[in-house]
């Protein structure tokens, strides 16, 4: 039951992008096509889950016992960037098809604040390792959902006659706003 609440809350109610404003750079950067959007979503899920596990272990077995919580930001970001590198190298060796699908998105992960944000949230909200993993996967799903929905809207927008002043970024932001408004309907569900 606890996991169901975490999942529903992360995907619909507190959507990481539309309600918590994390991961906006890729949200606007790679949402021009549905296919790239879903590729990005997969890569985020992969890295986010591993990052949540690793940072959890580091926090609970190194930082907290040594009372070094203030080094959290610096440790996490270093761990995440080296993790991204490692994942990239390993994927290339182990599973070339998966690397083909996710490879180009991996370098973008280091500066994706959704990854670091979720890693910090897992510790802040004092989840156990298992619920932390569920939390990370659910947030990645929420991210993918928002990304794919916006990509769908942008593909439609291509065909529309948008007022000159609103062309480009402004209309995309307004579209994202409307999407966020739709997601507000889930508020209070959990």
């Amino acid at each position, binding site marked *: 039951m606890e996991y169901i609440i975490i999942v529903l809350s992360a995907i619909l109610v*507190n959507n990481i992008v539309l*309600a918590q404003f994390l991961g906006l750079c890729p949200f606007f950067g790679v949402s021009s096509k549905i296919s790239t959007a879903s590729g990005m979503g997969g890569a985020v899920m992969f890295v986010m889950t591993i990052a949540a596990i690793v940072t959890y272990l580091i926090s609970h077995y190194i930082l907290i016992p040594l009372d070094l919580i*203030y*080094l959290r930001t*610096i440790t996490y970001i270093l761990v995440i960037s080296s993790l991204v590198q490692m994942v990239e190298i390993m994927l290339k060796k182990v599973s070339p098809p998966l690397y083909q699908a996710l490879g180009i998105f991996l370098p973008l992960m280091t500066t994706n604040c959704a990854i670091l944000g979720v890693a910090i949230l897992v510790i802040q*909200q004092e989840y156990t390792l298992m619920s932390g993993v569920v939390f990370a996967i659910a947030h990645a799903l929420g991210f993918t959902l928002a990304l794919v929905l916006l990509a769908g809207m942008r593909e439609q927008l291509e065909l529309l006659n948008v007022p000159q002043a609103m062309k480009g970024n402004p209309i995309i932001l307004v579209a994202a706003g409307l999407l966020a408004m739709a997601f507000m309907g889930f*508020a*209070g569900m*959990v």
Partner: protein
Amino acid sequence: MAKRESTFFNMVFALLVITLIASASLGFIYELTKEPIEAARTARKNSAINSVVPDFDNNPVEEQYTMEVAGGELVFYPAIRDGELVGTAIETFTNRGFSGEIILMVGLLPDGTIHGIEVLEHRETPGLGDKIETGKSGFHLQFEGNNPAEDFQVRIRQDGGDVDAITATTISSRAYCDAVMRAWNAYMHDDAVTYELPSREEAVERVLPPFGNNPLREDYRIQYLGRAYNIFPGRRGRTYTGVAVESTSDSGYIAPVRLMVGFDYTGTISGIEVLEHSESPNYGDLIENARSNFYKQFIGKNPGEDQIRIKEDGGIIDGVSGATTSSRAYCHAVRAAWEVFMKKDLNQGKLYPEYFP
């Protein structure tokens, strides 16, 4: 200086130097800001405690205790004045906020009346949900002075309660009520540890010196100073070994305390059990045998020789800390039981301790 080449040594050396300097300076800044951060945190907590409970003269933060409840932990800060619990500030939480967790400080009087509420932490929407904060609306006022035990339903009106939700902020208001009730329920019902008080039968059995009869079937009543006392005599064969007296104090902190006090034939206390009380959780209720060793101070004492009063009143008993009134009531009930036991002229013919050899 020319750009250094990317040899292995250079790379490791450069990164090593940078991380060393970085962590050293962070450690320095951390030491520097440690105190202000701690001070800011305690200041906020203290001011919240101050505003939700009546005046006190102890340090509630130092005397805090916690209680595990479903979904987390509540922290209790007891406010004590002149040795008496005057209220408890409870740090409580809810996960039902519009944007996640809300942490409140709820102040309850010993009988469960809500005295004050402050918001400690929340992530509710500014301009909307943040109106639950004390400074931003009068939302909290409708709770104050009300007791959920007395017909005040801590639910919003939409859910059939007595709380007016903040306009357009139903979810935050609902979550707020949830957090308040979590504190109240934990405080009143002491969810974490519930000890059953003994029944009359169990109490008689535990407080009497060894006996072979059935004291409950030989019970009778004595009137003393306008109050009825149940007496349960214990005997072996025809020899009486002791007697259990069911005794009630004048008044406790909230209501009178009812005890079962056992005496042997010399009038020495052989055992005491609490039958009934409504004292404050974690304070007055420490008079229960299961919760503290308070009762052990009485065993082996003879109220005819020993002053069965708390030390504040010139006696020999250490009162339960923070529950002077409850301890005093307990001593009173013990003395009343002893007087009943000793008064020969109260009940024609059947007097104690004349039965004893």
